[in-house]
């Protein structure tokens, strides 16, 4: 499989998981929330300072439909993480030529 194909497929899988499948995720408390609630670890829990932000708690403010709200927030999240992550890792990568001595022509990438 070509790299382009693999990346496209991967992004599609992530978008489908976050955009569609996420609606069907369990809404039960997670392991820590459950233990914290049962045992009283959460007695002094504080509200999240950004709890009123437009995408807080994986929903888009103003989108009434629950399915659309969760899905849209998930797709936005995948997009943001993909762009930030790829930008960071692209910047960090060791460039060909720096180690092998062969001079590669400057690459243009979007």
């Amino acid at each position, binding site marked *: *499989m070509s*790299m382009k194909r*693999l*990346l496209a497929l*991967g*992004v599609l*899988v*992530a*978008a489908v*998981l*976050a955009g569609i499948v996420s609606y069907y*995720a*369990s*809404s*039960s*408390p*997670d*392991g*820590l929330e*459950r*233990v*914290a609630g*049962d*045992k*009283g*670890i*959460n*007695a*002094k*829990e*504080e*509200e*999240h*300072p*950004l*709890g009123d*932000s437009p*995408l*807080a*708690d*994986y929903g888009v403010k103003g989108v009434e439909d629950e399915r659309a709200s969760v899905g849209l*927030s*998930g797709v936005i*999240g*995948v997009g*943001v*993480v*993909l*762009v*930030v*992550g*790829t*930008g*960071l*890792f*692209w910047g*960090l*990568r*060791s*460039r060909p030529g720096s180690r092998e001595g062969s001079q590669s022509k400057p690459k243009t990438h979007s």
Partner: protein
Amino acid sequence: MHVPDGFIDAPVSVTAGAIAAAGIAVSLRGARRELDDLTAPLAGLTAAFVFAAQMLNFPVAGGTSGHLLGGALAAVLVGPFTGILVVSVVLIAQALIFADGGLTALGVNITVMAIVTALVGYGVFKLLVKVLPRTRPSVTAAAFTAALVSVPASAMAFVAFYAVGGTTEVPLSTVIPAMLGVHVLIGVGEALITGLTVSSVLAVRPDLVYGARGLARPLRLTVEPQKTEEAAA
């Protein structure tokens, strides 16, 4: 396992922030050796995938759920240093954009869910890969086991922070078995997702999997530019 604000006191949260910052700084240096033109986009994709998978809470026993942490998965796919950065990017985005995981707790969360899972996961993985036959199924089995262990390890890292800086006085004899029990179960889900994902990537592009470097490569009939091969350490 995202820790909200108010579980851990200020001094220990600051300490955890320093640990997280140091871990990220070391990883930024280490990741340079793991990333190249091919694996850098894969690492970005891994971060997006971990974000998506973390939205998918699966039910475990008794009205409790869990989700992938992803540190072991990322470490096997793109390397341990890059793996720490992958999960850190996800956690920072979740805390800042989705109000998931506290802001003062960000250091705790990065330490517990990114650094501990990637390091413990990769440690277990390397150990197993050394003793198992050098085959693709071994890589998948090692990744599965690494993920399985990484979740209770992460839970115990949280307990360690709680022990020194918890804002409440729940005895550790109560906290440890409760946290361990549920996170062993969540670890099974983590292991299944990790094993499935690693085996899927191995099936299509085994050359891209960091943890499978050094496996004998299948003969290929394509003409490719010669690359210098590094013997596996």
